C-alpha cells in the first residue's frame, strides 16, 4: 500500500469508528485484516483495502471497521478498579437504588467486561435490586462471541482467577462457557458510539474503558458527553486506567478509574 492509500484508509476508519491509527499503521492494518482477507477468500490485505476504498459503505467496509476496532482485553482488567467496584461502588449503588439498578458497558468488546460485572453481581453478599446490565459494541462479531459466552483457555486466563473460572464457567471440551446464570444477566445490543443515536437515560453506572482513548479529540468529547447525559444523578463513570474524565467529573475517593460529578462529591463525602 502506498502512504497515500494508508492515509486515505485510516481517515475512512476514523470517520466510521472514531479510531485514530498511529505508529506502525501498515503493520497494524496487515495484522488486523489478514484473518478477514482469508475469511473473505481474498488474495491479500491490499485487495481488501482496495475494495473498501471503492465501496466505503458496503458490508466488507463494515467488517473491516469492526476488525480494526477489536481491542486486547481481559476479565477484571485493572484489578484494583474492579476490586473497588465490587467492594464499594456496587454495594453503595444497591443501597441507594432499591427499585432498579442500571449498568451500561459501552464498548464491551467480546464480553469480558460485562461478564466481570455479572460475576461481581452474582457474588454479591448484599441485597441487590433488579439489575439491568446492558452491553453494547460496534462489532457484531464481538457481540456474538459475548452472547455465546465461549472463551478459549488463553482468554479465560487473562484476568480470571481460577476459583472464579470454576464458579462461573463450565468447561466444554476445549473451551469454557459462561454459566447460564451469568449469560442471562447481560443484554447485548449493537451500537456504534460514533453514530448518532438516541441517548438513553438513567444509568447508575457506565463503563467505557479503553474505547475513546484511541479517538480524535472531537469525537472523544462527543462520546463522553453523550455518556454523561445517560448517567443518572449520582451515577458513576468508569474509564480506562490512562483515561482522563470529562469536564465536571472528579475521581471517586478510594475507587481508581471511577468518577462522579463534581457537584455530587460533597454529598458523597457526607454520606
Amino acid at each position, binding site marked *: 500500500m502506498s502512504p497515500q492509500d494508508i492515509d486515505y484508509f485510516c481517515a475512512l476508519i476514523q470517520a466510521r469508528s472514531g479510531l485514530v491509527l498511529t505508529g506502525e499503521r501498515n503493520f497494524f492494518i496487515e495484522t488486523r485484516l489478514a484473518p478477514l482477507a482469508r475469511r473473505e477468500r481474498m488474495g491479500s490485505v491490499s485487495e481488501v483495502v482496495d475494495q473498501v476504498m471503492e465501496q466505503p459503505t458496503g458490508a466488507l467496509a463494515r467488517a473491516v471497521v469492526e476488525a480494526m476496532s477489536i481491542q486486547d482485553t481481559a476479565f477484571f482488567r485493572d484489578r484494583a478498579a474492579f476490586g473497588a467496584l465490587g467492594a464499594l461502588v456496587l454495594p453503595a449503588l444497591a443501597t441507594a437504588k432499591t427499585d432498579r439498578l442500571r449498568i451500561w458497558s459501552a464498548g464491551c468488546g467480546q464480553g469480558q467486561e460485562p461478564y466481570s460485572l455479572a460475576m461481581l453481581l452474582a457474588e454479591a453478599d448484599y441485597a441487590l435490586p433488579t439489575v439491568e446490565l446492558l452491553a453494547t459494541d460496534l462489532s457484531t462479531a464481538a457481540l456474538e462471541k459475548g452472547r455465546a459466552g465461549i472463551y478459549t*483457555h*488463553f482468554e479465560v*486466563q487473562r*484476568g480470571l482467577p*481460577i*476459583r472464579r473460572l*470454576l464458579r462461573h464457567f*463450565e*468447561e466444554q471440551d476445549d473451551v469454557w462457557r459462561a454459566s447460564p446464570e451469568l449469560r442471562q444477566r447481560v443484554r447485548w445490543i449493537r451500537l456504534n458510539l460514533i453514530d448518532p443515536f438516541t441517548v438513553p437515560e438513567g444509568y447508575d453506572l457506565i463503563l467505557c474503558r479503553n474505547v475513546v482513548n484511541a479517538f480524535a479529540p472531537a469525537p472523544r468529547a462527543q462520546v463522553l458527553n453523550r455518556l454523561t447525559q445517560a448517567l443518572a444523578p449520582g451515577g458513576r463513570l468508569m474509564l480506562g486506567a490512562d483515561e482522563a474524565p470529562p469536564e465536571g467529573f472528579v475521581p471517586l475517593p478510594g475507587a481508581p478509574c471511577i468518577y462522579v460529578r463534581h457537584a455530587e462529591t460533597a454529598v458523597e463525602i457526607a454520606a
Partner: protein
Amino acid sequence: MKTCLVVDDSRVVRKVARRILESLDFDIIEAVDGADALTVCRGAMPDAVLLDWHMPMMDGLEFLKRLRREPGGSEPAVVFCSAENKADRIREALDAGANEYIMKPFDGEIMIAKFSEAGLL
C-alpha cells in the same frame, strides 16, 4: 528476593518458566519431579512453587499433598501449571491446597496475572 521452585519434567517448560519468573525478580530453583521437589523443600521452603501435574516418580498432586503436611509446608504459594484442563481435576488440585492454576499452554502475561492472584507480586 523471593524464591520460586519450578517443578516440571520438561526442560523446555522449566526454561520458559525460568525466563519469565526471573524477569519478575524471582530466584529460581529447578526440580524434575515431585520427589526431587520435596527434597528441595525439606532443605529450605521456597516462597512459591510452580508445579506441573504429570511427572515420573512423584506427580504434582502427590507432591502438593505431602508438602502441605511438612513443617512450614503451608507457607509456599503453589501455582499449578498443567495441561490437565478438566474442571474436576482443577478442583481436585485446589482442594489439595493449590493457590492458583495455570492451564498450559501459557504465556508471560498469564503467568504474571496468576502470580498476582496468588499474592506473589
